[in-house]
């Protein structure tokens, strides 16, 4: 049998179509009333409970990369890799719990975080954060669609473009029915499915191989020092031969990059603020983001340990062909260690479960990100600037048109990037360096009443410029260049906005936000 694409191409179509169709039917039955007004379309009705918000945040923060790269860290850095990966990516969620509760308390009618920035700061900061939020969401969606389609193509042989088109069609199949509520509801179902898939894989590794055998395998790798990734550097090999070390130094650098880079991807991303908007009250926001952090952490940790660390302990070599019964599969690259290990443990069932998990992660996050772009466009740009007196019907139409247009543009960009062979290597790190400079100004906007508006604006731009300049000067180095780039971004941003605020404080009354109407009010108060 061919080892190029171990699963038939119809399997990925079946997985995606079943998901899209199922969500569309369920959303139509349970939540179509939420699509009747613009406010409920973009805010989800502001009455969603803890369970759904918690599950939605977990699903939104799980990408295909979470499952693939966490396992790669286990294969690359040993047992500590998944810990560093999970810790770094979890940090933004508790922070969001505090910021989300704060905004939900001081401005309960806010629909987007740029809307809060507009009232809290001024017009220029609003434009800046609207742009940042839009670019972050668009960029993440492009990476998610591309990543999901590459994984689907690699393991089923279905054409890249067909998978990408199908994903985008699914995004716009159920979201227009009920907006944010539909996104959160579908996230919830995907989150439940994801847990089942990963629990099956983790339990299978535990039963079929067992921790003791894995430990002895790691000890053997440390003793014999086999060449597992031919063609890579000596430092790379040393990391793999150090799989039982608590303080693997390369892993520590990864922790810093993951922590700082992810702060921008969450705190400056309307997708997460939409979950704040949709939640019932400030307590629900706080509890949901806190439990989401606790519930999200074990996903990359257990997956990376079960699949990545186990693969290292078994001495899997990149480029080799591995078999399960009569079936065989090539271990093409280190990043694909998770599906290979799933295949070795449970055969095609394991591989199918893994692809199902990846498909769920991709659809849930992608749909949420596209809706976030729509929210910022309709709430902050269309209603905020272009047509402040737009009727509810206009806003609802603008939301649906914007959703479909965003999806179409993204699909075109994804296909063009693929056609010209655009490399995504380092782009996620670049995004972290570019946008994490907004993190400290956003935190200060929420909590420091004397924050200087100009200071926040300049800190966001200069922090980003300094971090990017340094990173480019290092030749876009993906090891310590990224680490220092991230540190510089946060450091410069803090060094500008904090002294500026101390020297030129601009007092602000947070109580003035509480009674303010949202932008989606039919009587605009912003002008």
């Amino acid at each position, binding site marked *: 049998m061919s080892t190029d694409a171990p699963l038939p191409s119809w399997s990925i179509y079946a997985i995606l179509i079943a998901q899209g169709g199922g969500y569309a039917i369920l959303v139509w039955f349970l939540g179509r009333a939420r699509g009747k007004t613009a406010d409920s379309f973009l805010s989800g009705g502001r009455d*969603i409970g803890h369970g759904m918000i918690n599950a939605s945040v977990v699903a939104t923060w799980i990408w295909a990369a979470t499952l693939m790269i966490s396992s790669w860290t286990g294969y690359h850095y040993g047992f500590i890799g998944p810990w560093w990966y999970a810790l770094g990516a979890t940090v933004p969620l508790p922070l969001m719990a505090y910021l989300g509760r704060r905004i939900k308390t001081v401005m309960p009618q806010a629909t987007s975080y740029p809307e809060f920035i507009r009232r809290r700061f001024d017009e220029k900061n609003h434009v800046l954060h609207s742009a940042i939020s839009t670019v972050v969401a668009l960029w993440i969606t492009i990476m998610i669609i591309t990543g999901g389609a590459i994984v689907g193509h690699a393991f089923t042989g279905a054409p890249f473009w067909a998978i990408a088109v199908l994903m985008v069609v699914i995004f716009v199949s159920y979201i227009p029915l009920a907006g944010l509520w539909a996104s959160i509801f579908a996230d919830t179902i995907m989150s439940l499915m994801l847990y089942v898939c990963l629990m099956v894989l983790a339990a299978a590794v535990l039963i079929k191989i067992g*921790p*003791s055998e894995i430990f002895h395998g790691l000890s053997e790798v440390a003793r014999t020092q086999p060449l597992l990734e031919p063609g890579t550097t000596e430092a790379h090999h040393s990391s793999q031969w150090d799989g039982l070390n608590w303080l693997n130094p390369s892993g520590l650098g990864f922790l810093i990059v993951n922590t700082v880079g992810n702060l921008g991807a969450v705190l400056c991303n309307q997708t997460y603020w939409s979950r704040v908007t949709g939640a019932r009250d400030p307590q629900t926001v706080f509890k949901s983001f806190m439990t989401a952090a606790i519930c999200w952490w074990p996903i990359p940790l*257990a997956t990376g*340990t079960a699949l990545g660390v186990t693969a290292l302990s078994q001495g899997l070599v990149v480029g080799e062909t591995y078999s399960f019964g009569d079936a065989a599969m090539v271990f093409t690259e280190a990043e694909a260690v998770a599906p290979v290990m799933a295949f070795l443990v449970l055969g095609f069932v394991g591989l199918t479960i893994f692809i199902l998990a990846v498909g769920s992660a991709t659809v849930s996050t992608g749909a949420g990100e596209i809706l976030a772009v729509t929210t910022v466009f309709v709430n902050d740009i269309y209603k905020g600037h272009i047509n402040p007196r737009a009727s509810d019907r206009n806003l609802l139409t603008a939301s649906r048109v914007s959703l479909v247009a965003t999806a179409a543009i993204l699909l075109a960009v994804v296909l063009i990037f693929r056609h010209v062979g655009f490399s995504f290597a380092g782009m996620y790190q670049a995004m972290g360096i570019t946008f994490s400079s907004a993190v400290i100004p956003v935190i200060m906007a929420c909590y420091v009443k004397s924050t200087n508006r100009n200071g926040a604006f300049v800190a966001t731009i200069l922090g980003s410029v300094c971090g990017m300049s340094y990173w480019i000067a290092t030749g876009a180095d993906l090891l310590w260049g990224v680490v220092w780039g991230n540190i510089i971004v946060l450091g410069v941003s803090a060094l500008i906005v904090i002294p500026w605020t101390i020297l030129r404080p601009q007092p602000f009354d947070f109580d003035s936000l509480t009674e303010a109407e949202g932008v989606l009010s039919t009587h605009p108060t912003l002008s």
Partner: protein
Amino acid sequence: MTEFWYVLNHWGTVVWLFAAGLYTWFAVGSDLVSMLRKRRNDTKAQASGGPEPEALPDHPRKD
């Protein structure tokens, strides 16, 4: 790292995953039950002559 600590680490990750999964299932189930119960009550209220609850604005304004 000794074998004891590795085994503890591995079991810990799996137990944590199962606990998180079960908690999420329980919390979502609880939410969905509340939602369906509310829908049933709303339908009953509507059938007995009251207004359609979800047709009301999400946040009635004072004006």
